[in-house]
């Protein structure tokens, strides 16, 4: 499977030839990496899938280029093609030109390419959990490229590895060298991946969604680190991401991809402030934002991103485009503005302004928060007793009120206990203490028959719409089954009619009942999940990260669906998410959790406009936003370090180990919740300070 050929040209020779070429450029420095007309095709069964089409980009020294797009747009495949890492040459074909310091390395034999990889062009992958070999020590894995490319001795490599670990912000580097990946947290592993990428002082680094698997405070730490390394070491960074807000905060230039093509590129400010392509425009409008007043509705792009198997003819965006015309059935060329922004659109947007968002239609005043709560949770706690002894106090002393006809948003980083709250309230696991009163009865002490009734009234929508649907059941069967089990429909015919009603409600075509889950897109599957919950005529829906697995344009559709259903059916939601902007968009009351405790709870306005807890403030500062383009120089990562282990949480205030304003008092006593208003409570002894 590997094509190994003995060295045809020594790398040293290649490197010596390069400076002569770079000297010829005029004012702009020559690009370190330039990719021209990259095409990638996969052979699947008998057909060829043209997954990357004529992609060109370049990155200069000390610059961050973002390649942004939704899933399936070909951005990851492009990066692998640029590294020449596409797995099987028999089933994938790539053509085009890629020059590193002016030298076209696509033409090199594989053996010479291997010597470039890890030495001049390095890569950081998305999943820090699986991208390191579990059987080798950290030190060994960092040293490997140094042995391979720089011929360092073991002691030289160790000294350099210690330097690198220090540089990427890992404390106690000597000890880390002898540790294995499973002994490190996700954020630490990603730092190790960065150290590996830096091992041989590469010219260019490609980072493929480097922070997608990480929490928002860790994401800010990692990207701040990458940005400072790029500036300091003058490398070029290609940042591949789906997150436009990250682009705004970190990238210098951006290329937007759709259906395998670059549809727009320019400086970050150009693209984000004056998008010309209609897709970029739609994408920007679909992102929920923390830096502008909340919109009543998110603007969504209709439809779904096309599958690479059948990209539409002409402009691939035309089936979803609001202004598409006959002309769009032919392929638009990239045209450039006089400032160098390039876009491929026949009907470019020229008037789109961020300012348009800043003065929204007035949002009707909230009265939902003052209504009586539909679900009242008091003192909820859940302990897990470990086999080896010891107890994890997953959640403690949780007090929440879900307002009638409103939404309580529960937000926090991974491991904070937000899913445990949902599972305990759903009675999927027994609570250790506390009450949860729903319509006058305590869910947590309900008998089996009471529970059966309560389960109809309280429904759930899960994060992963694929694994929560039975792959062997057609959608019609999935939706009809609970209706028949609970006796809500007398017979199959009645159930079928009800299923069609439900599909109309969530905006799915009726003929979808004949399909299996794998034949649908992520957004459609999530709509099925919602329809299944609605079938029980619930009063409360617990949503556990319902949009985090979806693309931005689909996320906006689903968020709007949630909002519409709430109005139409008078539902209440307990909405769990890690994305603060999403939570702000949908919630009336927001609770922030950290290590199993509620740190701060308040109405949307109180929490987002007047946050009092240092953790809430840190979270808000860590979230990148589209508006960050204008204030790039700020230090973002206010919170240092990793989440402590829930097995051994800090004494006193659980946040004190990472808190910027913690004092001795925070270490000794668990802070009580201080009420700042009828709805606003903060568990911090310094909450009174402005």
């Amino acid at each position, binding site marked *: *499977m*590997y094509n*190994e050929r003995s060295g045809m040209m020594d790398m040293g020779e290649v490197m010596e030839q390069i400076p002569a070429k770079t000297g010829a450029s005029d004012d702009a420095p020559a690009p370190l990496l330039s990719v021209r007309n990259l095409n990638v095709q996969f052979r699947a069964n008998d057909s060829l899938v043209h997954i990357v089409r004529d992609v060109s980009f370049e990155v200069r020294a000390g610059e961050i280029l973002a390649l942004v797009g939704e899933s399936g747009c070909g951005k990851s495949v492009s990066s692998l093609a640029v*590294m020449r*890492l596409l*797995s099987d040459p028999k089933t994938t074909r790539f053509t085009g030109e890629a020059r590193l310091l002016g030298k076209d390395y696509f033409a090199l034999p594989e053996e010479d390419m*291997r*010597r*470039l*990889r*890890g*030495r001049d062009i*390095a*890569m950081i*992958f998305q*999943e820090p959990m*699986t*991208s*390191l*070999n*579990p*059987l*080798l020590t950290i030190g060994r894995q960092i040293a*490997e*490229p140094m042995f*391979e*490319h720089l011929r360092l001795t073991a002691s030289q490599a160790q000294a350099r590895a210690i330097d690198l670990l220090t540089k990427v912000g890992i404390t106690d580097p000597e000890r880390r060298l002898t540790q*294995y990946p*499973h002994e490190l947290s996700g954020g630490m592993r990603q730092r190790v*991946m960065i150290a*590996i990428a830096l*091992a041989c002082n590469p010219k260019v680094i490609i980072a493929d969604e480097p922070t997608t698997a990480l929490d928002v405070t860790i994401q800010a730490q990692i990207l701040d680190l990458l940005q400072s390394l790029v500036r300091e070491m003058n490398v070029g960074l290609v940042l591949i991401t789906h997150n436009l807000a990250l682009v705004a905060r970190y990238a210098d230039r951006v290329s937007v991809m759709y259906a395998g093509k670059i549809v727009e590129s320019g400086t970050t400010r150009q693209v984000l402030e004056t998008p010309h392509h209609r897709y970029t425009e739609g994408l920007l409008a679909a992102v929920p934002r923390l830096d502008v007043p909340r919109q009543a509705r998110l603007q969504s792009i209709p439809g779904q991103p096309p599958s690479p198997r059948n990209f539409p003819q002409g402009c691939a965006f035309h089936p979803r485009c609001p202004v598409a015309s006959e002309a769009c059935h032919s392929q638009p060329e990239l045209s450039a503005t006089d400032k160098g922004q390039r876009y491929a659109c026949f009907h470019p947007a020229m008037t789109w302004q961020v300012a348009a968002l800043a003065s929204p239609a007035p949002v009707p005043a909230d009265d939902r928060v003052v209504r009586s709560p539909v679900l009242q949770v008091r003192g909820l706690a859940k302990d897990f007793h470990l086999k080896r002894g010891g107890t994890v106090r997953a959640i403690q002393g949780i007090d929440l009120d879900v307002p009638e006809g409103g939404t309580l948003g529960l937000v926090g980083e991974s491991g904070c206990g937000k899913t445990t709250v949902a599972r305990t309230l759903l009675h999927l696991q027994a609570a250790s203490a506390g009450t949860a009163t729903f319509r006058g009865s305590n869910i947590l002490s309900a008998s089996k028959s009471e529970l059966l009734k309560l389960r109809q009234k309280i429904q759930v929508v899960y994060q992963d719409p694929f694994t929560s649907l039975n792959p062997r059941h057609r959608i019609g069967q999935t939706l009809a089954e609970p209706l028949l089990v609970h006796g809500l429909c007398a017979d199959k015919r009645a159930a079928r009619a009800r299923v069609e009603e439900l599909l109309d409600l969530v905006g799915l075509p009726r003929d979808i009942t004949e399909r299996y889950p794998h034949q649908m897109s992520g957004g459609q599957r999530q709509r099925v999940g919602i329809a299944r919950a609605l079938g029980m005529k619930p009063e409360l829906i617990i949503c556990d990260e319902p949009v985090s697995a979806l693309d931005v344009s689909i996320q906006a559709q689903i968020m709007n669906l949630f909002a519409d259903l709430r109005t139409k059916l008078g539902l209440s939601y307990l909405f769990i998410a890690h994305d603060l902007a999403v939570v702000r968009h949908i919630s009336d009351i927001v609770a922030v959790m950290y290590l199993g405790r509620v740190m701060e709870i308040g109405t949307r306005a109180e929490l987002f406009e007047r946050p009092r807890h240092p953790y809430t403030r840190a979270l808000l500062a860590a979230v990148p936003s589209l508006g960050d383009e204008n204030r790039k120089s700020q230090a973002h990562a206010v919170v240092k370090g990793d989440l402590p282990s829930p097995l051994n949480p800090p004494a006193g205030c659980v946040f004190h180990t990472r808190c910027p304003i913690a004092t001795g008092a925070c270490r000794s006593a668990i802070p009580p919740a201080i009420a700042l208003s009828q709805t606003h409570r903060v568990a911090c002894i310094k909450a009174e300070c402005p």
Partner: protein
Amino acid sequence: MIRYLRNRLLLAIPTLLGVATLIFFMLNVLPGDTVETMLRAEGGSPSVELVAAERARLGLDRPLLVQYGDFLTGLVTLDLGHSHWTGKPVIEEVMLRLPITLEVAVLSMIVAIAVAVPLGTIAGLYQGSSIDYAIRIFAIGGIALPSFWFGMIIALVMLWSFNWLPPLGSPSLMKDPFRLLQQLILPAIAVGYRYSAILIRMMRSSVIDALHEDYVRTARAKGLRVARIVWRHVVPNSLLPTITMIGLEFALLIGSLVVIEQVFSLNGIGRLFIEAVSRSDFMVIQGIVIVLTVIFIAVNLLVDLAYAAIDPRIELG
């Protein structure tokens, strides 16, 4: 580590007890009676009185549960009782025959691993190529061909083509290891082929899985040589499931040995077992089953220790 070993050994007690109970009662519901078989072998048809007297001498006239209790008490003191046929202690009979069986078992395990790891790796690396097909056909052969038949074939081939026969006698491992190797290599190959076939398939699929792992992509992105990627990243990770298989398949190996010892006239525990069955010598059968169970448990403990030695994620404790 010590705590882990202690726990594992403690866990072996209920396992052994279960096996002992099962074998004891199963043998007692089977037809056939040692005393009668033995007396008939001496000629004529024994009188009812003689049979009863002999049964009383061997303690077989006592209630079943008393015999069961005796058997268990014996086990605790490592006393497996006396053979009804020869009157010798069972443990002595078993220990006399055990070494040669263990030698064949270990040799075939070595043969199997030495064949399976490289072949499985190559097949996995070149998935879908002609060499992969060749190795897979080789592996299917190992599973399909009965080992006694394959053993006879290789013995005959060696005889016809090279006029070579394994040496006779019972050379000892200490004094004449080379002669012992000559004697045991053919049965080891016959049994090891099947063993290796299963391991090849396991190794091949683990290698294919490992090649798609993210850490192998990372290793490629580092620009490492292919040989180094395979040796340091792919093979160690693929060995983990294969090692588990080695332990589980050890039981199958022992089963094949019972037959193969007949083919190659080895005076091992398999031979003893067949003799004991034909004589309905329950005490010996029980003894052999208990000893083999102990060995199986020990092998699997070793496998788990090897696993923990390779994989730092496994903490023994």
